[in-house]
């Protein structure tokens, strides 16, 4: 058993990767979905197994090809990566289980095997970024996941997805290139690509200026990928016009993986070695985080399309994650990591309900959804629960992360007042834009025509499970908070 456990970090990437060619060949209807879902379930199981091993105390490492760490490519899974892996594989699994009918209606039969293959490639890439401990390897997996997501987003019937994905492709490529430039600079100065090894060697470098430049490139590049305000321009349209299932999957985990790399790289490599870099990191990102929370929430208030509204809400929520990290202390990092988990729960559940609503009503503009609650009471009940979590109402997961964030902000002296005001303003704006949806779906009179779409019970079931998870993790919080606390400790280990 221990023997198998040691292989799990590699299997996390290898299993979905090797299934890709198989899925592409499965032409008969339904088989590709079945194979992709089964693979995703296996990946989820691997992530759970690794998490339970880590909770018992042992971080997992794996040397590819048997080459020891600084020379070969190393994989390393600790509490932070385990939490991300749970989010990625969990989102993929739950979405795939529920999304078959939606994907059938949006993707032609002939292209479905390719679609599921791209899905698994995205899963491979996202998991790969998280498990690897090698800076260049991160770039490779980032490209895999990005290219696969471009395909997924443009795969739907909505032709407006094409210009959106082109914008995403251009901006994503710039981001990846910036990251690569940064890694190149560090490699030039230190001669290593292994993150832990970099940390040990950066301070041996005589001239620190190239490292500082690298830090700038990497931060901006990853911020682009993570849609940190004001580099979020690609996100709303990409989420809006993507197939509904893809939105649910990517919204739950794609930007968070970029944030993971950003936080991990900065705290591991740059902050221990560059004098005053923690202040640079804090004062660069904190204003952006505050702006993201306020501006993006305000924009969401005026959106008429449910998916766009939730996409802008995502930009705001990324602000909360960045705000926690930019405090550069234990409580802030814990809040940030907990919010990665909890926001994935809330936003994943919300986009899953959007998927169910779209199947029933055809379109998810607020006008179309007038009176939807009477026609789809269970789906809308799940939506309300997930939305309460998004707002941060006690009893839901969202409250836990907001609580940690407020506690972290309180440690900041005079800065606490504007930060808490920002969090409160963001929450109230969230109440306002959620209320618009509730008002429309629960109170507006429906036009007489009966919607034609049919929602299979499986979809409703998945939606309800996702909503229930928001309540469960709002009360029994041990898993995310333990992982986040360990992650925060590990991140600060290298700091002076």
């Amino acid at each position, binding site marked *: 058993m221990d023997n198998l456990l040691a292989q799990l970090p590699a299997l996390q990437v290898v299993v979905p990767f090797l299934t890709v060619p198989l899925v592409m060949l499965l032409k008969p209807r339904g088989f590709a979905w079945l194979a992709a879902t089964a693979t995703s379930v296996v990946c989820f199981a691997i992530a759970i197994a690794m998490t339970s091993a880590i909770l018992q105390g042992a971080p997992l490492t794996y040397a590819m090809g048997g080459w020891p760490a600084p020379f070969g490519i190393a994989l390393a899974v600790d509490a932070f990566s385990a939490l991300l892996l749970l989010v990625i594989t969990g989102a993929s699994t739950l979405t795939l289980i529920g999304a078959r009918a939606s994907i059938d209606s949006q993707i032609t039969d002939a292209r479905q095997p390719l679609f599921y293959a791209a899905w698994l490639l995205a899963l491979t890439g996202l998991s790969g970024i998280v498990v690897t401990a090698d800076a260049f390897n991160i770039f490779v997996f980032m490209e895999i996941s990005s290219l696969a997501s471009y395909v997924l987003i443009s795969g739907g019937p909505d032709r407006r997805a094409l210009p959106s994905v082109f914008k995403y492709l251009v901006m994503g490529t710039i981001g990846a290139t910036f990251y690569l430039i940064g890694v190149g600079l560090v490699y030039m100065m230190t001669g290593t690509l292994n993150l832990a090894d970099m940390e040990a060697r950066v301070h041996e470098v005589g001239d620190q200026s190239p490292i500082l430049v690298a830090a700038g490139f990497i931060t901006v590049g990853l911020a682009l990928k993570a849609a940190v305000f004001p580099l979020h321009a690609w996100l709303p349209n990409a989420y809006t016009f993507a197939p509904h299932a893809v939105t649910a999957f990517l919204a739950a985990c794609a930007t968070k993986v970029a944030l993971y790399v950003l936080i991990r790289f900065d705290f591991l490599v740059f902050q221990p070695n560059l004098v005053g870099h923690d202040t640079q990191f804090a004062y660069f990102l904190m204003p952006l985080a505050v702006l993201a929370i306020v501006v993006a929430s305000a924009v969401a208030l005026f959106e008429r399309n449910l998916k766009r509204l939730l996409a802008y809400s995502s930009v705001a929520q990324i602000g909360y994650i960045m705000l926690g990290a930019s405090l550069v202390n234990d409580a802030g990092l814990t809040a940030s990591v907990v919010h990665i988990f909890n926001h994935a729960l809330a936003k994943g559940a919300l986009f899953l309900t959007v998927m169910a609503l779209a199947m029933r009503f055809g379109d998810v503009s607020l006008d179309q959804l007038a009176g939807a609650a009477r026609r789809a009471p269970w789906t809308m009940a799940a939506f309300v629960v997930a939305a309460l979590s998004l707002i941060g109402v*006690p009893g839901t997961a969202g409250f836990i992360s907001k609580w940690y964030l407020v506690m972290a902000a309180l440690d900041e002296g005079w800065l606490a007042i504007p930060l808490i005001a920002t969090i409160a303003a963001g929450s109230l704006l969230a109440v306002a834009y959620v*209320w618009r949806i509730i008002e429309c779906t629960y109170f507006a009179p429906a036009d007489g025509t009966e919607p034609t779409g049919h929602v299979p019970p499986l979809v409703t079931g998945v939606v309800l499970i996702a909503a229930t998870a928001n309540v469960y993790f709002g009360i029994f919080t041990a898993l995310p908070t333990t992982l986040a606390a360990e992650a925060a400790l590990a991140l600060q280990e290298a700091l002076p």
Partner: protein
Amino acid sequence: MSPETAIVAALAWPLAGALAISLTGRVSANAREAATLITAAGLIWIVWGLVPELLAGGRPAVALAEPIPGISIAFRIEPLGMLFAALASGLWLINSIYSIGYMRGNKEANQTRFYTCFAIALAATIGIAFAGNLLTLFLFYEVLTLSTYPLVAHKGDGATVRSARVYLGLLLATSIGLLLPGIVWVYTAAGTGDFTPGGILAGHIASPELGLLLALFVFGVGKAAVMPVHRWLPAAMVAPTPVSALLHAVAVVKAGVFTITKVIVYIFGVDHLFSEPGSGWLLYAAAFTIVAASIVALRQTNLKRLLAYSTVAQLSYVIMAAAILKPLAEIGAAIHMVAHAFGKITLFFAAGAIYVASKKTELGQLRGIGRRMPWTMAAFTIGALSMIGVPPTGGFVSKWFILAGAFEADNFIAIFTIIASTALNAAYFLPILYMAWFEAPAKDDKPHGEAPPAAVAALTITAMLTLAFFLLNGPVIRLEQQLISGIAG
């Protein structure tokens, strides 16, 4: 059953009942009604079984989960919560009997949803009553709001849904916008939000912040209907009358004043609040609400709306009594929750019985109705006299205690308010009684008899309770005397 098990059972039993009601509702209406009655009776058995433990000085507590270190979902019973839970569970059974008569007599639709939501609302009420800290209380407070929304919007037509929207919007907005920040403030300042005898804020928060925090609680708890956050209560009158009777005369509104009283006694601390100048405004806000709501009630022509404004005024009696910050007045606040509950539920039952029997809703239509519905109007008379505070009704007992507390504090504002509002209560209730008993019915009035027997039985029981409370209030007072132990005279 150990007290700790009983706490969990008191929460789980109505929820299990809700499940049973929704399942049996598909089979037959009789089975569903049987499930409701069994659930209500079982809840009484569980909740009232805890009273001896409390009278003996026990404070059973149980913690379910700890979402954030130091903040748990926990329950701890103290005298005030015990009283509230016993009251709500006891009246639920009577109300269920009444509901059966009312809902069948009116041939209402969606009755299964109605009874299911009712059981969930009762579970939330018990959760509020037994909550051991602010966060737990808040959770069940929101569950109560959400679970009563389908009851208020029961009819489902445009006007009803618009009113239900005011109900939901106002209660949610005040609780999230004001109450929650207040709770977070308490936790951050005091490091805990557990309900502790003597309060937890002494030495942590002083004036003028204390007055602001008090405002967050008083206006954040919209259910207490202190002006200007009272608008939801008249709006909620679009609900079927059993909902108005149990929820908007007992469970929901009492959850509001209960929360404020509990926060004053166990979070702020009566003595701490008394020694701080920043909290004096609460008395004036409550006094203003009493007088203003009574004047508004004077101008109503619809019976249920009149009762709603009367409720707004009576709720502020509890708040004003708590704000006098003297031991006798705190007892008066607790007793008034009971006395008003008996009287007001009787009045609503009567209003509903009149509607079922004759479809009358306006005051002007009630001429001579006393001769056609003698039982109902006799009960209505007892309820109205209790609202005014005439002996031998329960309303007299609580007014006595509140007045005694006001004299103890030499609080002439409170004394004057009580006198003025007694006059106003008489001014809007006595004309109705005169019309009903002594005027002749209108010419075009169609003859009708009493409401269904189940409804008449229920309102007779609550009218008897109103009278009985005048004499048999000993156990309640004994229980609530524990509430004030340790408060300076």
